[in-house]
Structures are given as structure tokens and as C-alpha cells.
């Protein structure tokens, strides 16, 4: 059965040991796991492994082909880099969560059936939640809750879709699903949420900036990219994705302008960049799919680098808002330059990895003759450069003479991690063949055609001109930006308010009413006769109010009765009454019988 060790399980089960190790051992162990997984990947052959019978079904944990392998590679590599970045973190829990998170993503890329897919999706959501929660701030607390809610919602959509799909097809195999029935809408929605496609994207910009410094780096890589993997696998060539992707690319860019928080700005750029991939999936040609895959690969690296840079700033200064930053260049030049490598990569400058992958998607759009899409994507890269390449460095490292707070270079491990990542970004930019060989389909594309290089350079250089002209408009303002999370943030608040106030008021009033009824019955039962008397008197009291003298007497009566209540209910019945009753009874019987008979 065990053809190879599942790399995901190396992480997940490996993670469980982390809390038991201390200090250096723990650090060594943390680095060992990704290495192990990497070695494991080297020995993997394509095929289908790890079929496990479960309930009435057969789960497939290991469907290995080129597509899953390329994602697995980048996940393992990224996790290694990020672990280095996070090495200084003392809290074991954070490491555990991160490793389970990575492990479940790895699990997800190898799944061959829908159940396991759901399982890993949920596991991913839960473990990533911890990376946000560990920040410990109130904002993180609330953002984390919203984050998990959205993901559970995605999971519910996915589960619902899977259920319908399985019921309809009778098989749980996870292959190309396509957009053809109710089930597929649900599944797609689930993954569109995970991929942060507008208008289902708000969780990303909401939660990532609130995560811990190192956790955010992990978060950037896995959730969205794994759903890109699923989209490539399940929904290639679904046309709606083209438009969604293109809009997404631009949407992220536009919102990024308004952001004041450095990581939130970068988060919007994740949305924008994932837009390229979604678009690539939608186009669905081998070129576009390759492009999407390649872009995911590269994106993980440069976005991690960018978040590492931003994280370094936050780690050192404790601030994340543009309005509070500036002038850091003097103290953090290394960070600045490493960050800039990431920025050039994401913008798609030639010689950086963003260029070799992004242009593939553009080429895909061009080959599929989608002019508007092409223009939108091109436009999105303008915005990308504008923000990550120009606005962020300008506002964070320059813009002021002196920083508003203490600053120095971040811990060594962070710098090492950033250096390694930057190295990989450039390496892939310079030797794209390393990447292209790994892609699922054969690549017939030369990124460094003159036209591409020139076109891209012009675009980005003139963007700078525009930026320089309008840089005054770009200063941060202490505001937040409304996004689609408005609906559920407000909605949730209202909903909880509804539960706590009107609903509880209603239920307790019903309850109180019942209790009052019960207690009045109890009151009555203590002496029914006297109680009846009191009731009659109270009625009389009300009725006789106009007739003053009589009414007063009744009032006095009532007072008296109430004072003595319940009195002694055990009054004996006089003999006379008994006899009378007997006679009445006799009469009653006789009458009834004689009439009846």
C-alpha cells in the first residue's frame, strides 16, 4: 500500500511532535520536516496511491501527476523558506498550526476524491485560523472569527456541492467537474471563496493583515493557491472564470490604492494576482493553464517575499499604517532591497519571476483573442507596480526624513529567509526553464521575446511617471475602506443582536408568562374557595366602582380576604351540606335514569 510517504502527513503528524521539543532542537526539527518532505517528493512517481476504503467509498490520498507535483514542490519550498522566517517565534502552537496548515494543503493537492478534498479544505481553514488568532489583538480576534466563518461557509458550499455531485454521479472521484449542474455551482462557489474572487474576497483583505507577522507569510501562499490548483483540476476552461479573473485583477488594484495598512495593501494585491490565475484557468488552453500554474508558483515566492518585508517592518516597528511609517531606509536598507526584488517580481519586470509567468497568462489571453481581458490584465499590472513597487517603498522607507519610531534590521533568520526567497525569485526570472520543465503541459513559450520585454518595460516605466506626478495623492489617510465584508460584518452584528435581544426577550417573556400562569395556578390551588372569593370580589370591585359606597365595602372585603389568604382550606363540610348533596345527587340520578330509561 505505502508506495511512498505522503508529504502532507509528514507535516501534519510531524507537527504534533513540535510542542514536545524545546529550543534548538525544535528549530532543527522545524527545518528538517520540509527537507524531509522535499526529499520525499523527489522519490515520488506519478500514479495513484494510498487508496483507503472508508465507509462505503474509497478515498484516494495520493493522485500524483505533474500538476499536483508542481504545486507540491512550491508548497514545500515555500514552507521551508517561511519556516526559516518564522524560526525566531517561541510559541510552539503557532508552528504547529502552520505545519498542519501546510500539511493539509499538501494533502489537498494530492487528493483524488471529493471527500478527502473537503476534509483537507476544512483542516486548512481551521489550522490557518490559528495563525490569525495568535496575534492576540482584539482586531485579530474579530478578524479571525470572520475568517473562519467565511471559510466554514465555503466548506459548507463545497460539502453541499460534493454531496449533490456524488449523489448525481455515484462516484466520489475528483476529476474535471465543469460547470454544468447545481452541484458544480456549489463546488465552484466554495473554491471561489477560497480563491478570494470578488465579491467573495473580503475575508482575505480582512484577515491577512491581522495575522501574526510570520503567520501572514504562511497565509499568503497556501489557501488561495491551493484553490487555484483545484480550479485547474476541476474547472479548466469555465468561461465565467475569465471575466471573474480579469475583474478580480483590477478590483484588487483599485482597492489597494485606498489602503492605509501595508499588509492590507499587499493582501489586495494577492487578490489581484490570483485574478491572473483564475483568468488563466478560465481561458483553459494549455498555455493559459501553464500560465496559471506558473504564476501560482512564482506568486507564492514573491508574495511571500513582500509579506516578509512588510512583516519585518511590523516586527521591528510594531506599526503597519502608512500614516505612521516612513523614513525607514536609513535603518533597514537590506530589507528594502530584498523587498524591492519582490516588488519587481510581482510587477513583472523582466529578469524577475513575475515576468516569466505573468506574460504567459497574457499570452494565453492574446492567443485566445480576448482583447478586453488582455487590456484589463495589463492594466492590473500597472496598478501592481504602482503600489507594491512604488507606493509602498515610497511611503514606508522614504516619504519622511526620520521614522516616527525606532527601527533596525529585523532578526537574522528573517533576513536569511528573505534573501533565499529573493534569490529564487531572480533565479526563476533568469532561468525560467527550471520552472517551465515542471509545468503540467509542454511549454512552447519564450518569455524573453523582445516584444514582451519592451512592452512590459514601457508600461512599468511610464507608470512611474504617472506615480511621480500624482504621488501627492497617494499619501495614506487614517481610514478604512468598505468592502463586501460590510455585508456580513454588519449582518452578523445585527444577527447576534437579534439573537441576544429580541429573541431572548421574546423567549423569556413566553417563559415568564408560563411561569406566571403556573404560579397563579399554584396560588389558586392553595385554597380554591377563598381564591374564587377573592376573584369574584376583585371583579365586583371593578364593576361597582361607580357606586361609591358599595364599592368601598368591596374594597375593604378584598383587602381582608387577601390578608387572610390562603387561610385554612381544610374546613369541614357541615353534615347538612352532605345530606343536601346526597339528595341532590339522588334527584340527579333519578332524573337522568328515568329520562334515559
Amino acid at each position, binding site marked *: 500500500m505505502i508506495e511512498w510517504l505522503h508529504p502532507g502527513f509528514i507535516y501534519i503528524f510531524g507537527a504534533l511532535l513540535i510542542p514536545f521539543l524545546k529550543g534548538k532542537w525544535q528549530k532543527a526539527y522545524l527545518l528538517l520536516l520540509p527537507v524531509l518532505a522535499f526529499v520525499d517528493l523527489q522519490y515520488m512517481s506519478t500514479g495513484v496511491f494510498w487508496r483507503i476504503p472508508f465507509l462505503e467509498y474509497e478515498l484516494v490520498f495520493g493522485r500524483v501527476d505533474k500538476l499536483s507535483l508542481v504545486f507540491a514542490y512550491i508548497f514545500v519550498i515555500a514552507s521551508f523558506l517561511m519556516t526559516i522566517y518564522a524560526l525566531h517565534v517561541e510559541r510552539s502552537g503557532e508552528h504547529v498550526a502552520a505545519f498542519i496548515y501546510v500539511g493539509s494543503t499538501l494533502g489537498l493537492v494530492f487528493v483524488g476524491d471529493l471527500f478527502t478534498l473537503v476534509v483537507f479544505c476544512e483542516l486548512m481553514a481551521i489550522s490557518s485560523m490559528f495563525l490569525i488568532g495568535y496575534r492576540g489583538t482584539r482586531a485579530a480576534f474579530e478578524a479571525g472569527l470572520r475568517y473562519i466563518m467565511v471559510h466554514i461557509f465555503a466548506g459548507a458550499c463545497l460539502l453541499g456541492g460534493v454531496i449533490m455531485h456524488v449523489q448525481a454521479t455515484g462516484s466520489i472521484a475528483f476529476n474535471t467537474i465543469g460547470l454544468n449542474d447545481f452541484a458544480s455551482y456549489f463546488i465552484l462557489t466554495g473554491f471561489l471563496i477560497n480563491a478570494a474572487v470578488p465579491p467573495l474576497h473580503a475575508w482575505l483583505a480582512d484577515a491577512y493583515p491581522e495575522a501574526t507577522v510570520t503567520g501572514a507569510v504562511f497565509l499568503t501562499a497556501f489557501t488561495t493557491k491551493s484553490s487555484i490548483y483545484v480550479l485547474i483540476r476541476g474547472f479548466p476552461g469555465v468561461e465565467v472564470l475569465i471575466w471573474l479573473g480579469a475583474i478580480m485583477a483590477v478590483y484588487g*488594484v*483599485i*482597492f489597494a*490604492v*485606498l489602503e492605509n495598512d501595508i499588509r492590507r495593501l499587499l493582501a489586495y494585491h494577492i487578490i489581484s494576482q490570483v485574478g491572473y490565475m483564475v483568468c488563466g484557468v478560465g481561458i483553459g488552453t494549455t498555455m493559459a493553464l501553464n500560465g496559471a500554474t506558473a504564476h501560482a508558483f512564482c506568486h507564492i515566492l514573491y508574495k511571500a517575499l513582500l509579506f516578509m518585508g512588510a512583516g519585518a517592518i511590523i516586527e521591528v516597528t510594531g506599526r503597519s499604517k502608512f500614516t505612521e511609517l516612513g523614513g525607514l*531606509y536609513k535603518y533597514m536598507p537590506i530589507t528594502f532591497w530584498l523587498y524591492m526584488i519582490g516588488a519587481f517580481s510581482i510587477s513583472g519586470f523582466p529578469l524577475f519571476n513575475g515576468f516569466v509567468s505573468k506574460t504567459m497568462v497574457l499570452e494565453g489571453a*492574446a*492567443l485566445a*483573442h480576448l*482583447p478586453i481581458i*488582455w*487590456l484589463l490584465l*495589463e*492594466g492590473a499590472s*500597472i*496598478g501592481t507596480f*504602482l503600489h507594491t513597487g512604488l507606493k509602498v517603498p515610497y511611503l514606508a522607507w522614504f516619504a519622511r526624513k526620520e521614522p516616527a519610531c525606532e527601527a533596525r534590521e529585523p532578526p537574522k533568520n528573517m533576513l536569511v529567509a528573505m534573501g533565499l526567497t529573493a534569490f529564487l525569485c531572480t533565479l526563476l526570472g533568469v532561468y525560467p526553464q527550471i520552472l517551465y520543465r515542471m509545468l503540467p503541459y509542454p511549454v512552447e513559450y519564450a518569455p524573453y521575446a*523582445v*516584444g514582451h520585454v*519592451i*512592452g*512590459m*518595460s*514601457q*508600461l*512599468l*516605466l*511610464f*507608470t*512611474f*511617471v*504617472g*506615480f511621480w*506626478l*500624482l504621488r501627492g*495623492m*497617494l499619501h495614506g*489617510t*487614517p*481610514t*478604512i*475602506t*468598505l*468592502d463586501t465584508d460590510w455585508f456580513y*460584518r*454588519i449582518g452578523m*452584528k445585527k444577527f447576534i443582536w437579534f439573537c441576544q435581544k429580541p429573541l431572548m426577550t421574546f423567549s423569556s417573556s413566553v417563559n415568564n408568562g408560563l411561569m406566571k400562569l403556573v404560579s397563579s395556578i399554584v396560588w389558586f390551588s392553595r385554597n380554591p374557595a377563598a381564591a374564587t372569593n377573592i376573584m369574584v370580589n376583585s371583579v365586583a370591585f371593578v364593576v361597582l366602582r361607580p357606586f361609591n359606597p358599595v364599592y368601598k365595602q368591596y374594597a375593604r372585603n378584598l383587602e381582608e380576604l387577601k390578608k387572610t389568604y390562603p387561610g385554612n382550606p381544610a374546613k369541614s363540610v357541615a353534615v347538612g351540606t352532605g345530606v343536601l348533596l346526597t339528595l341532590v345527587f339522588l334527584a340527579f340520578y333519578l332524573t337522568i335514569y328515568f329520562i334515559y330509561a
Partner: protein
Amino acid sequence: MGKIEMKHLFWMLYACLFVSVLVEVLLHLSPHFHAHAAFVWQEIPGFGAVYGFIGCILIIVVSKALGHHWLQKEEDYYEKH
């Protein structure tokens, strides 16, 4: 970064801008070029430059307008509502 250095940098930038456009114009003039232009505008020399410039301005202006009139709110917006 001193002021003079900045000036040099800007000169380099202007040179780059000029060169990038010039190269493309030259390319378009050369007879071998018209190999793969998927869209009409790719045949216009300097399109990228214009698009980049205009796009940049548009993105800033449009989103700022959106933000100013609609989307941007004070930081304790959600606590209040």
C-alpha cells in the same frame, strides 16, 4: 540619498523611458517584426508607454474618487455601526 544622486537617477529614468520607446519604434520599422501581434494596438509603437501612463493616472484618480465619495470611512466605523 542625496539630492544630486536623485537628480542623476531621474536623468537615468528619462533615458530609460526614451530608450524603451525608441527601441520599439525601431522594431516596428524593421521588416522582420510583424510576427505575432495578437491585437491591433500591439502594432502601435509606444502603446505600452501611453497605456501605462494613462492607466496609472486613471487608477489613482478613479479609486481615489471612489474612496473619497463612498468607500473610505473613519477607522472605528464598524464599532459604531
